[in-house]
């Protein structure tokens, strides 16, 4: 039983990270109707920035804060220099641009920091909280707590602040938003800034103990796709639920499938979340909480 509890906590912690990454997808999709395939690489870059800043004399919280600020700048820069030129172009083209960006960022990271495994350098490191006969990683607890705080902030932002409401209005109807005086262009820039900032935070928790820092982390972040899709691409609440579900499924399958169903092969947990996503989409084509698009003639 304590095995199970441990796996659940691990799963929820992983799910919280996925939820943070998925929120990055959702916030860009909601305002600009583009899936940002570079989100995983922003996460990667954010994590390496935290590592690099922490290598200097900066204390850990300060380096996280600075990395978040830099990543917000990176997000803003990407929108300003590249994506703004693509306004009005087919979605497919814009999505491919983000894929191109993803490839570029991943290679820049490996060009600068190489392919060695590194430790992020978080102060709590490998500390464990005793629970039952096994104990859980402090990382898991901090991840869940931090993710909950950030998600709460998100909802406050969307509900009560001017910028958040403007973002929702833009998502609903760009032209109408322009008509009532919302600066749609700066809303796009804000969305990318937030996506960049949140990527840095997700990066910290994705690479903290027991995980390590490696350029392949960008691919791990791809597993947050099912989370965003599961909940519906334009639903922040759905992203959170999707993240937790995907994290739980991944960890539980990893924990139990080798004994319960070994015939499914090695590393089935990687494919399992995608199968779950495909299954959900068959039943609900816009995810669990996504808005159904209405076709108008």
């Amino acid at each position: 039983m304590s095995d199970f509890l441990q796996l659940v906590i691990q799963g929820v912690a992983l799910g919280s990270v996925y939820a943070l990454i998925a929120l990055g997808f959702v916030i860009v999709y909601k305002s600009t109707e583009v899936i940002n395939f570079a989100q995983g690489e922003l996460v990667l870059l954010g994590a390496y920035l935290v590592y690099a800043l922490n290598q200097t004399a900066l204390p850990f919280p300060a380096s996280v804060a600075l990395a978040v600020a830099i990543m917000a700048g990176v997000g803003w820069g990407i929108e300003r220099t590249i994506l703004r030129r693509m306004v009005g172009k087919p979605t497919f083209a814009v999505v491919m641009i983000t894929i191109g960006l993803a490839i570029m960022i991943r290679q820049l990271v490996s060009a600068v920091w190489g392919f060695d495994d590194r430790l992020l350098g978080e102060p709590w490191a490998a500390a464990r909280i005793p629970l039952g006969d096994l104990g859980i990683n402090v990382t898991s607890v901090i991840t869940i707590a931090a993710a909950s705080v950030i998600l709460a902030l998100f909802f406050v932002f969307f509900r009560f602040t001017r910028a958040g409401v403007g973002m929702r209005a833009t998502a609903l109807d760009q032209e109408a938003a322009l008509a009532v005086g919302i600066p749609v262009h700066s809303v796009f820039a804000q969305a990318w800034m937030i996506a960049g900032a949140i990527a840095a935070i997700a990066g910290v928790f994705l690479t903290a103990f027991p995980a390590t820092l490696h350029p392949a982390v960008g691919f791990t972040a791809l597993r947050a796709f099912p989370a965003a899709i599961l909940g519906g691409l334009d639903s922040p609440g759905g992203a959170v639920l999707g993240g937790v579900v995907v994290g739980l499924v991944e960890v539980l399958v990893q924990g139990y499938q080798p004994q319960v169903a070994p015939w499914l092969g090695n590393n089935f947990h990687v494919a399992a979340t995608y199968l779950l996503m495909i299954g959900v989409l068959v039943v609900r084509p816009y995810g669990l909480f996504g808005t159904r698009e209405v076709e108008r003639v």
Partner: protein
Amino acid sequence: MTLQLPRPAPRRSAPSPLATLPLLRRIDGLRTGYADELALFRGVGGWTIVAGLALLYLATPLVVDDFWLSVMNFTAIAGIAAIGLNLLTGFTGQVSLGHGFFLGLGAYTAGYLGGDLHLPVLVWLPAAGLVGALVGLLAGPFALRLRGLYLAIVTLGLVFVGEHLFLNLRQITGGPQGRVVPSPLIDGLNFADLHSSLGLPLSREQSFFLFVFPILALAAIAAKNIARSRPGRAFQAIRDREIAAAIIGVDRARYKVAAFVVSSFYAAAAGALYGSYLRHITPGQFDLLSSIQFVAMIIVGGVGTVYGSIAGAFFVVLVPRVVEGLSPAIPFVSHSAGGSGVSVFVLNQLLFGVLIVLFLVFEPLGLAGIWARLRTYVRTWPFSY
């Protein structure tokens, strides 16, 4: 109950009086009737190109060295797959990030049928395509229910599910170590080695060139025929405005699934050739990056054109080879795996990403767009517009 109206016989448009002048008719580009609009090769220019290509096909392997032949062979194989993706993405507007999965499917099918069951190439090549088409048929219904980016992500999921299958179905795929794919053989005639089977003084690259380019030509002409006939028009109508297409009577379900099936057929057949050319395949070759490469090919070459797919394939195959060749001359680039500085692989990937972004931002029509502009410029010279 549907009411069948009597249909008038299709009217042939009366030939324009100009068409009676044989000289004018032959001038490239003068179109005097609908048949001319639809013609594959128009006028003297078109047929000259065909004859030139045939001559090139025979001359190239004798003149060009093995390095360039291998670039061309990879181009031909990738070109077939890119044409398939262009039919789906460029013509029908359905974004697929799962093309690499279908390539893998074809390659493993070829390996199993040709290697384990010892069937000739005439069986395993079409069979690989058919297996791909069948799986494409199964994936088709998703295209019906899902719109745009949701579909792209499901095809992304296909890549991961496929990789899992390739890694774990060890009897067929050989697991992580991969498996051998046989050379194209018919009754002892080995198309990848005409030297030992026919006694011709040809290397493996030369033999494979002669084998694979007719297949590329076949694939290109078939795609062109699809694109310029009824299904192709339906594909493009769906791409441009789906609801309007449905209203004028295009069967969306049928044509979307058809696009998936045809595209998967192309991909799987190309995968079979790819495996046969490489001789040994591993699951890692059919990952997300390979799928993205095909999307890059059609972007660079030109979305919605057949010849653009081949041009794009050539470009995407060529660039890494050139970078590799130039790497000793580029500063900060290490040639060996463990050396300091940026590795060639990293540099290539970086360039690849930059290329995708630059083409989309500055030349969304790709090489085909550049070519079309150039042609217009020359034709209308000295009047530019």
